[in-house]
């Protein structure tokens, strides 16, 4: 089964910086593979071991994202494709999904498309489901285990707020995965050396045949008009008084009773 795994380059640090004008994320610092996507790549490698076929890693990003794709190739992915073009700049989730969908069609489709649950920079978790919709494929989000899989169908466990949900789907389909699904491997010495010999194929909007008005800032349905800090929800209380008073306050708080105020 041929698998396409969608990956994104994200800032390495938690301290994401925003462009003061466009309010989009600045991508000039150190960058890494989106941590959630590492689980998607790992699952693709494990499925290939079971089912055979080829894995293509697909990304949209700045030319420098090529090094992230090379890192993914070092893990054992067969091919890497980078959608890179000024026309893609400033894409929101809709425009990103549009470009990725065009690329999937351009590559001739796949038996399975894997994505990470969401990216650690935007935290939207929208691209996977949008991609499925545009390709008219079933979508299963938050997959925590692939219990059984054939060329035509898969039985999956979804992680939900309440517990696990067992789902069966026909294939091809788009799956987004959570980190419970596996433990990603580290690349090997041989893998890194091999990846150096592999090409990262680059595709532009024109090569994909997408209308420039459908991607990038122009093709985006959303605009970030302002950014702000969410209000702090923590309720840190400082206890004072004697050791016994404080212990009693803690005990009351643990029992769910209103603690004495020693603030």
């Amino acid at each position, binding site marked *: 089964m041929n698998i396409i795994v969608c990956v994104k380059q994200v800032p390495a640090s938690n301290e994401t910086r925003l462009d003061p004008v466009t309010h989009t994320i600045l991508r000039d610092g150190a960058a890494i593979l989106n941590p959630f996507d590492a689980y998607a790549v790992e699952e693709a490698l494990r499925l290939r071991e079971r089912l055979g076929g080829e894995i293509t890693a697909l990304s949209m990003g700045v030319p420098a994202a090529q090094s992230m794709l090379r*890192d993914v190739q*070092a893990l054992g992915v067969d091919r890497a494709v980078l959608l890179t073009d000024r026309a893609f700049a400033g894409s929101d989730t809709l425009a990103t999904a549009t470009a990725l969908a065009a690329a999937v069609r351009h590559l001739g489709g796949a038996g399975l498309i894997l994505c990470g649950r969401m990216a650690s920079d935007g935290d939207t978790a929208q691209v996977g489901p949008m991609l499925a919709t545009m390709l008219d494929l079933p979508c299963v989000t938050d997959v925590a285990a692939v219990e059984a899989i054939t060329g035509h169908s898969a039985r999956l466990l979804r992680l939900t707020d309440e517990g696990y949900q067992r789902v069966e789907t026909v294939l091809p389909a788009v799956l987004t995965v959570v980190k419970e699904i596996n433990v*990603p*491997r*580290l690349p*090997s*010495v041989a893998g890194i*050396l091999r990846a150096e010999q592999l090409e990262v194929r680059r595709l532009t909007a024109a090569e994909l045949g997408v209308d420039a008005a459908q991607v990038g800032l122009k093709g985006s349905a959303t605009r970030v008009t302002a950014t702000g800090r969410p209000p702090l929800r923590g309720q840190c209380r400082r206890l004072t008084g004697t050791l016994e008073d404080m212990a009693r306050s803690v005990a009351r708080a643990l029992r769910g009773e209103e603690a004495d105020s020693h603030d």
Partner: protein
Amino acid sequence: MPLIEPMTPALSGYLSDESRTQGQAEYIAFPRSEEEIAQVLRWCAGHGVPVTAQGGMTGLAGGASPQGGLALNLSRMDRILGLRRDGAGTWFLRVQPGVRLLQVRKALKEKSFQISQWDEASVAALRDFRPGEAFFSPDPTETTASIGGMASCNASGARSYLYGATRTKIHALRAVLPDGSVTALERGVHRARGREALLPLTDGSTRRVLLPEFETPPIKDAGFYLRRDMDLADLFMGSQGLFGILSELELELTPSPALLWGVTAFLPDHAAALRYVRALKGQEGAPLPDRPAAIEFFDRRALRLVEEQKAETPAFRQLQELPEDYNCAVYAEFNPREPSLFLPTLSALSDILRRVGGDPERTWVARNERELEKLLFFRHTVPETIDLIVEKNRKNDPCITILSTDMAVDDAHFETLFHRYERDLDACGMPCLLFGHIGENHVHPNLLARNREEWERGHRLFEAWAAFVASMGGTITAEHGAGKIKRKLEAIMMGPEKMAQLWELKRQLDPLNLMGPGNVLTEVEA
């Protein structure tokens, strides 16, 4: 609160360290300044009360566990005092002895210092310091260790293979001597003349000390450092609070490497691992284009222990599954300047692995902090797991402690020692494992005694190894210090004559013999 408090049950946590050596004390003091240390020591001298220095209590040899008298706990002297850069561009950080390694690392990485009491020169120097541009290189596994404690046992870690142990990175220090006088020593400035050491005191006088006739071996060593013409600061390195109490240290910082890559190779047998290590060290074949910063070994039993622990400890589950059919693993760390420049080294490693029977396909490479964290977590998991098991076994018999050694020899004798460990561990009849700093010729055989008989048998094995190591000119403690637990091994290594000379050295600095009771030295017949 008075400076010297009586010991109470509420303070009993200060009676044992990470080695679980149970001590006892009548008094405890938490000084906040050099002057307060001096006050305590004068009081102790006046009342004949022995003194045991304590830092982070993370020692593995019982050095900080008091044997009567007063526990001098330095944990409240935890301030970073200043920063300077010398003409050559090297950064130096001045700290109090109770500062934790973790604190120093974080402050340097984030350029986050409490500077309200810094002098102007330090504040000015700080302006030029870029976050993370330099680091304090000694890396014992336990990062809550205090800097004073690290100095007093010359602590080291995986990266001391490239960067050296703590001793070499302490540029200057101040120490309070047992009578309350203070000496200030700087490396390269205050040196012995032959065996004669003149310690300059802050009141302008000097204290003359005659050093022992013998010199300690030129290998990584957590014990005394004794040489003719030695830097006097080194008298307080590895001497475990026997000569005085460190009150201030100036740390030499090292420029931070651009990148850290870790390579973990799984090998079919110990012979392959030893060949691989020889190649990494440049002893066999052409030297690697990049020199490793660390070389670590894990035997099959150590790897299994971690695998088993995964089932019980959720945090360990993020560790990658180990390949099948391996026998042991060797981890090497490198500091490439940029990824592409590291390819020749990877290529050379691939050739070496093939030659020694390893497999480049299942040799893991960590290329960024996130990936490396996993390998370091794995490394840390081994001693942590040992701790858990020892704690469990102690329920069978409270006498049981960690049975781990850190003996080292020179390059020429290492494989002989390694084969002796292999043989004796195979025959010991109790759970055991072998891991550690193979690059610096010292690995840690660990015996997980389940009862008193096994614990005693383990000790006898250690004594046999100590004699073996001593016969090859090695040390019984390369990184933990002798403390109380390894005192007997120290006596085997030193022999009565050198031991008598060490007592003579101590008598000159501590005539009332109050410092570090029960640490390192053993009585010898006059």
